[in-house]
C-alpha cells in the first residue's frame, strides 16, 4: 500500500502551484467546485419552489389557468377560518398534526430504544450490521405493497380478528383495526421508525464510552446516566429523526389514503385531489402553506432541542 502511495506524493511541485496562482483564478476555482451542488439545488429545489409560488398566485376557473397575480387562492384556503367553527383547512391541518404527534410519540422512544440497543449492547460489528439490515427490511418492497400487506392482518376477517375470536377473547370482530386512525398511525410507525433509528444511532455511536465510565465514577445510576449523559448527547440525532418523521407524515397522502380507507383527511390528500381536478393554483397555494407549516414545525423543534440544555 505505502509503496503504491509513494509515487503519487512525489511531484512536490504540484502542491506548490496554488500558491503561485493569482487570486481571481483561485476564486474562480472555488466557484467552479461549488457549481455542481448549486446547480442541483437550483434545478431541483429553488426553481420548482419558485414556480409553485408563482402558480399559487395565478387565477383559475373550471377550464383554464390565467397567469394573473391574485391572492384569491390563499383567501379561498382560509375562507371562514376567522369564524367560530374551524374551517376545513384548519381541521385538515389539525388531523395531520395529530398523526405527526402520535407517530413522533411512538417512533421516538421506539427508535431510541432500538438505536440504544444497537449502539451500547451489540458488541460485534457484523451482528450490528445484520441487525441494521433487518431494520431496513420494510424498504425492500414498495410502499403500496407494504401497506396492502396489513389488510389480511387487520381486516374484518383478518388474522388478528380470527385469532382473537378463535381464542374466545372476542365475539364480534374489532372494527377499528383497519381503515382507522389506528391503522394510519400503525403504518406510519412501520414506515418511519427506521428514520429515527439511524440518526439516533449515529449520535449514540459517537458517545465516548469513557463518558459513561466517568459518570459511573461520579456515582450516577444507569437511569441518571441515560438522563444526564446519553440523552443530551443524543439530542442532535433525535432532532434529525424528528425532522424526518415530521416532514414524512406532514406531506403524506398515500398512507393516510390507503390505511384510512380514503375516509381520513390530510393535507397531502387535499393537494393530491386538487391536482387531480387540475386546480393547480389552489394546489400550489396549499403546498406553499404546507411548506410554511413544516418549516415552522422544524424551527420549533430545533429551538426546543437547543433551549433544553439542562443545567
Amino acid at each position, binding site marked *: 500500500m505505502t509503496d503504491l502511495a509513494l509515487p503519487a506524493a512525489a511531484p512536490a511541485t504540484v502542491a506548490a502551484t496554488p500558491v503561485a496562482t493569482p487570486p481571481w483564478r483561485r476564486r474562480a476555482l472555488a466557484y467552479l467546485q461549488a457549481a455542481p451542488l448549486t446547480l442541483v439545488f437550483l434545478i431541483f429545489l429553488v426553481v420548482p419552489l419558485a414556480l409553485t409560488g408563482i402558480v399559487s398566485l395565478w387565477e383559475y376557473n373550471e377550464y383554464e389557468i390565467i397567469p394573473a397575480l391574485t391572492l384569491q387562492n390563499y383567501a379561498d384556503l382560509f375562507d371562514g377560518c376567522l369564524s367560530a367553527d374551524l374551517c376545513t383547512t384548519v381541521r385538515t391541518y389539525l388531523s395531520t398534526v395529530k398523526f405527526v404527534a402520535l407517530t413522533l410519540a411512538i417512533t421516538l422512544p421506539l427508535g431510541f430504544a432500538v438505536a440504544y440497543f444497537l449502539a451500547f449492547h451489540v458488541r460485534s460489528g457484523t451482528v450490528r450490521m445484520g441487525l441494521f439490515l433487518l431494520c431496513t427490511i420494510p424498504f425492500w418492497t414498495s410502499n403500496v405493497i407494504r401497506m396492502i400487506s396489513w389488510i389480511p392482518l387487520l381486516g374484518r376477517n383478518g388474522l388478528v380478528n380470527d385469532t382473537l375470536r378463535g381464542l374466545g377473547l372476542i365475539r364480534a370482530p374489532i372494527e377499528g383495526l383497519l381503515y382507522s386512525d389506528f391503522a394510519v398511525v400503525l403504518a406510519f410507525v412501520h414506515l418511519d421508525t427506521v428514520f429515527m433509528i439511524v440518526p439516533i444511532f449515529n449520535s449514540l455511536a459517537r458517545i465516548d464510552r469513557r463518558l459513561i465510565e466517568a459518570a459511573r465514577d461520579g456515582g450516577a445510576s444507569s437511569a441518571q446516566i441515560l438522563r*444526564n449523559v446519553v440523552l443530551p448527547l443524543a439530542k442532535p440525532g433525535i432532532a434529525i429523526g424528528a425532522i424526518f418523521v415530521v416532514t414524512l407524515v406532514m406531506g403524506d397522502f398515500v398512507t393516510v389514503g390507503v390505511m384510512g380507507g380514503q375516509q381520513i383527511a390530510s393535507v397531502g390528500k387535499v393537494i393530491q385531489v386538487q391536482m387531480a381536478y387540475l386546480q393547480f393554483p389552489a394546489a400550489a397555494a396549499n403546498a406553499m402553506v404546507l411548506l410554511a407549516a413544516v418549516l415552522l414545525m422544524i424551527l420549533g423543534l430545533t429551538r426546543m432541542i437547543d433551549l433544553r440544555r439542562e443545567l
Partner: protein
Amino acid sequence: MDVELIGLTKRYGAAIAVDAVDLKVPSGAYCCLLGPSGCGKTTTLRMIGGHERASAGDVVIGPKAVGDAPPAERGTAMMFQSYALFPHLDARDNVAFSLKMRGVGKVERRAKAMAMLGLVQMDHLAGRLPAQLSGGQQQRVALARALVTGPKVLLLDEPLSALDPFLRVRMRVELKRIQTELGLTFIHVTHSQEEAMALSDLVVVMNAGRIEQAADPRTVFERPATAFVARFIGGHNVIRRPDGLVAVRADRMRLGAEAGPAALAARVVAVEYQGTSVHVGLDADGLERAADSPAALTAILSDAAFAARPLRPGDTIPVGWDATAAHRLDA
C-alpha cells in the same frame, strides 16, 4: 486512606492481564504504577476504581474490602486518560456533575464546584465548554471534577500523556501541590519513568502483569531489583558477569586511565551531547546488546570531563567501573 491489593488478578479468557498482585499503598502517599504498555498497570488501576471486576483477589481501601462495590461507594475518584469531560456541560457543571447525581441542590453544588475550580485555578473559565478549553485547562477541570466529592483516594490514568512537554512539567508540579495540600492518596499510572521519579513516594514497576519492584524512587534507581527494572528505569547498564547480572549506573562508568585493572577495550559507537552531560555509547566484544539499543553500554560523562578528553565514534577506550558501583540483580 490506605489502599491494599491482595492477590489481585484479572484474566481475559486465557490471557492474564494482572497476575496476583500484592501491594500496600500507605495513606497520603503518591504512588506511581510504572511500566510499559500492556503491563497491566491500567487494568490494576481500573480494578481499584471499580471499573473492572477482579477475577480473583481483593482491594482493601481504608478499613474495608471493597470487592465488587460500585465506584462511588469506594471513596475513590478517577481521572480518566484524555479526561472524559462531558462535552455538553460547561466546566462548572462538569465539576458539579457527581454532586448533582447525589442530589445536592443547585446553589450548593455550584458553589462547591466553583471552589474546586478555584483550587485548580480554573474559576475564571467556569462557563466554557470543554471544546473551548485547551488540553491543560481540560485537565485541570477533570482534576477538579475528580476531587469535588472529597475522595480519599484519587486514581489517575496517564493524566499527563496528552500534554505537551512544557505543560507536562508544570502540571506535574501542580499535581504534587494538590496532593500535598489535600493529603490524599494518589495512585497514578504512567509509562514515563521521569514522571514517576519526579512525583512519587512509592514507585511500583510492573511488567507482564506482575510487580517487579515497589519502593521509593531512590531505592528503585540505586538498587533496581531486576534487570527489567534497571533497563526500564534508564540510566543503567545491565552487564552479564560470570557470577550473574549486575547493574551499573551510566554515570558511574569509568573511561580511560580511571577504568581500573578489569577494564574492557570498548569502541565508541555514539556520542550524544546533552548540555550538562554527554552520553557516550560503547560497544565491546563479549557484551550482550539489547536488540533495540544501539550500544551495549552507555557512559554518562560530565560536559567538563568530556571536554577534557573528547571522544569520537570509532575511538577505542578502556571502560570499567568501581566495584562498589556494581549492583547485583536478581534476574
